[in-house]
């Protein structure tokens, strides 16, 4: 279909492009507020301990130190779901937990002061392994969570929020199966999404109960709401967002660092910045949840799944703020990817003495599928079923349904992704390369090639509410009021583009407000690929509303009905008589025209991403090289081609495909310390190691969006990891089920080395 839009679907420069390439973009650490102090956190060296006594006198006496705070000095602000984790507590629960906060006139002084605080700990036994944590007599992290099982359910998702996938009759399902497989599979390397900009915040407290925060976050309006509840509903919070130097989900929830800054400002009466070092970021900020599934699946010869039953252990580290939400969404997403009438899949969230897990792209579903698809693969192998055909057959089709995060059944009414999957397979050459399970695609001496495929889709593209205003000015410009922060997707520019398209104004004449909660209406934020459909629809509705009001105002001047009018380039004209026209300035210089738009959640649509990978395994060294990636999707309508390309290529990083190849957070199980909390020991992909990536993007219009598009950015990391393990297994001819596929694991699978089992991350 030819693109008839003026801006939509065209490559347009990012509105913030000039700032980014000239160094003018002001990230959090580039901001200096007058009289600003610097905050630092004293972090526990013990994984589990009670604070017996704190001597802060020496630190307080150091010149330049303005506050030293411990749990005894602060209000009972609590995060977590349910709210059980105090911002500073008498008990520390992981190596890196906050024991004290310092504010000083310089970072150096604050850092120096940390060393002068003497904390006396009573060290408690710690637990790092999920199964260990569940045993009777295991060290208990919270009184509120007996047995270290975190209370299930996410109240934010409503009274029936999804806690498990239970439907049909699994016993009957297993009876109908031609093959039943069972086993335990893990995705526990807890990769760090690792945005380049570490988490941080600047806070300015004003007595008695007001705080302004400059935040570096993915969703600055939600910070205001999160903090309101954390601070006991007693504090009026204003958040000012800015460019966010990467998030990938993680910085959506930064309440702790924000509270540290707020508490220090409250104690000193001055603005305080707390900005994590990279080591703190890696060792004490949130990681991907750990996932371990013990399950049984039944499958028919034709690839129909007859039953899934099992337990899904989800390791959340020392507390959970969003893990229940990830479990809910994961449980929804697994139904989208695997059509099956009989389920009995019971999740359990476990806390252990390591840093917390939190939001990362893939939000529960990636973690779940990385453990379920290997089990399904065993059944496919027994029945000699091609995994591409299996995933294509079992992905949700129009008319199918799923229980979504709110526990409500939705019937899918989007496009059929079969065509996109087939296009991708064709480009990849799946048919030619697939030789059967555990069979290499090609062998050249010690080098063996294998292929794999994965799929992911989520119904969060229409999640949660968004609001926006669009204000029209007599000079023929427009301003979008939206509390969307730019965290890399380019969506702030895309919303401007949508306003420009509705109003037919050049993009240069449309601006967007800073993401300040004081001036903008409610915005859940760009997450879960909801930007295009959810935020976009609110923005479009606001622009339409403003336009309608303008036409009502102008219609009498053109002696026409509002419905007979249209506008372009700041001029209003009569549609069937365009010579009858008048510029926007006719509204009068003393007037603006304001429109409002709101999006209500809609869970009847899902996006889809299928990823094909080809790897080469050197059987001598065990090294796995990712040779080629083909991503395939259908987005309805591309909004910005280069922006979409960037998001699709993002499949590698941020705890995505590379979490199956080399990315892992390594926790020392005897001390609870993370051993690779720096960017040399934490492995990441460099330019010379780029695989070939090809992206197939179809545009089958979605009727529910003004421009017929849906978002896909969030999920691009999700199908790849499981595809990599599949490809490595096929290349070497034996199953490899541990993430990541490091050389030692490959050699072990090949029987070349005898190594004791080392699980990379732990739950």
């Amino acid at each position: 279909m030819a693109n008839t839009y003026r801006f939509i679907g065209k490559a347009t420069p990012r509105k913030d492009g000039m700032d980014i390439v000239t160094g003018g973009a002001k990230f959090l650490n580039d901001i200096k507020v007058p009289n600003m102090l610097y905050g630092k956190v004293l972090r526990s060296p013990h994984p589990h301990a009670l604070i017996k006594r704190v001597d802060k006198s020496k630190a307080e006496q150091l010149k330049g130190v303005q506050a030293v705070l411990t749990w005894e000095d602060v209000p009972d602000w609590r995060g977590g779901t349910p709210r059980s984790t105090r911002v500073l507590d008498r008990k520390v629960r992981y190596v890196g937990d906050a024991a004290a906060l310092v504010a000083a006139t310089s970072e150096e002084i604050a850092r120096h002061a940390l060393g002068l605080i003497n904390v006396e700990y009573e060290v408690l036994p710690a637990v790092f392994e999920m199964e260990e944590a569940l045993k009777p007599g295991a060290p208990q992290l919270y009184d509120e969570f007996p047995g270290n099982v975190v209370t299930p359910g996410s109240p934010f998702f409503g009274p029936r929020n999804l806690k498990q996938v239970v439907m049909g009759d699994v016993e009957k399902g297993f009876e109908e199966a031609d093959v039943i497989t069972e086993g335990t599979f893990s995705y526990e390397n807890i990769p760090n999404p690792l945005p380049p900009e570490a988490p941080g915040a600047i806070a300015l407290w004003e007595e008695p109960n007001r705080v302004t925060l400059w935040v570096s976050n993915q969703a600055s309006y939600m910070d205001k709401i999160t903090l309101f509840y954390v601070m006991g509903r007693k504090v009026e919070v204003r958040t000012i967002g800015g460019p966010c130097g990467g998030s990938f989900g993680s910085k959506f929830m930064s309440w702790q660092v924000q509270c540290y800054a707020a508490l220090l400002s409250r104690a000193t009466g001055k603005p305080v910045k707390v900005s994590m070092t990279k080591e703190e970021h890696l060792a004490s900020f949130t990681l991907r949840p750990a996932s371990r599934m013990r399950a049984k699946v039944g499958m028919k010869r034709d690839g129909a799944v007859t039953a899934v039953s099992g337990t899904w252990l989800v390791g959340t580290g020392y507390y959970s703020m969003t893990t229940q939400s990830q479990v809910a969404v994961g449980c929804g997403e697994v139904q989208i990817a695997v059509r099956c009438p009989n389920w009995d899949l019971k999740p359990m969230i476990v806390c252990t003495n390591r840093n917390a897990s939190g939001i990362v792209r893939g939000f529960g579903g990636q973690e779940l599928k990385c453990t379920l698809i290997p089990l399904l693969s065993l059944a496919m192998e027994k029945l000699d079923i091609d995994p591409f055909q299996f995933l294509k057959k079992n992905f949700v089709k129009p008319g199918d349904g799923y229980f979504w995060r709110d526990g409500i059944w939705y019937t899918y009414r989007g496009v059929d992704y079969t065509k996109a999957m087939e296009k991708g397979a064709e480009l990849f050459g799946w048919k030619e390369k697939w030789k059967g399970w555990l069979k290499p695609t090609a062998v050249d001496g010690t080098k063996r090639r294998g292929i794999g495929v994965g799929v992911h889709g989520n119904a969060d593209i229409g999640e949660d509410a968004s609001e926006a205003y669009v204000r029209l000015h007599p000079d023929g410009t427009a301003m979008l009021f939206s509390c969307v922060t730019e965290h890399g997707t380019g969506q702030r520019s895309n919303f401007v583009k949508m306003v420009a398209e509705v109003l037919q104004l050049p993009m240069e004449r449309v601006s967007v407000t800073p993401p300040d909660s004081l001036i903008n209406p409610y915005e859940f934020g760009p997450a879960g690929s909801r930007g295009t459909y959810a935020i976009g629809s609110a923005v479009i509705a606001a622009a339409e509303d403003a336009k309608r009001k303008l036409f009502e105002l102008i219609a009498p001047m053109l002696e026409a009905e509002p419905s007979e009018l249209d506008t372009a380039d700041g001029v209003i004209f009569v549609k069937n008589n365009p010579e009858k026209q008048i510029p926007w300035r006719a509204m009068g210089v003393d007037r603006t025209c304001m429109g409002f738009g709101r999006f209500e959640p809609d869970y009847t649509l899902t996006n889809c991403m299928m990823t094909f990978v080809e790897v080469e395994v050197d059987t001598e060294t065990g090294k796995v090289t990712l040779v080629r990636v083909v991503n395939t999707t259908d987005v309805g309508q591309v909004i910005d081609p280069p922006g979409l390309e960037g998001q699709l290529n993002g499949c590698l990083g941020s705890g995505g495909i590379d979490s199956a190849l080399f990315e892992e957070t390594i926790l020392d199980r005897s001390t609870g310390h993370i051993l690779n909390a720096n960017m040399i020991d934490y492995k990441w992909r460099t330019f010379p190691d780029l695989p070939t990536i090809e992206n197939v993007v179809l545009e089958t219009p979605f009727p529910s969006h003004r421009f017929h598009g849906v978002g896909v950015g969030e999920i691009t990391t999700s199908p790849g990891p499981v595809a990599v393990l599949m490809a490595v297994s096929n290349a070497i001819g034996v199953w490899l089920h541990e993430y990541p596929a490091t050389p030692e694991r490959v050699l072990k699978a090949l029987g070349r080395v005898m190594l004791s089992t080392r699980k990379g991350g732990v739950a």
Partner: protein
Amino acid sequence: MVAKQRRSVKKRKSPATRRINLTVNGQLYELEEGSGPDQVDPAHTLAYTLRETLGLTGTKVSCDNGACGCCTVLMDERAVLSCMMLTIECDGKRITTIEGLADPKTRKLDPLQQAFIEYTAFQCGFCTPGIIMSAKALLHENPSPTEEEVKEGLSGNFCRCISHYQIVKAVMATSARER
């Protein structure tokens, strides 16, 4: 665990105040050694001096440990990691930061900057200044690099959003235009 003690807060006394002359983006700065706000502490990195003392915050600091390339600046046309250099070792050096790439009079962008905008060779944009500076040094040394040479030249730069592919295109396009 996480408190780095890299920058000492102790004052060091020396008989005569030492001066460090830095030319940054064509402007000469005569800095004094010391621990005042406008001075250079012997423990200050070049990245710190550029950002905190001179206010040139276009240079970003991410790992602060020489691993990610975000803080890359040019020193006498060569790319250096400003978080790994002490300012007192930079006396007499000519530094170019991201703020110094555009023409100071006309504000016309450097062709690399222009190409980065055209190819949308960034997503979150945090690592972009460092990558542009690495690419600038590469093109200075090798005006007509192959794609492989561009990748090698940028191998020390971290980009988590994965804008690598668009970056390589932008650098190759710049090289082709300059030829």
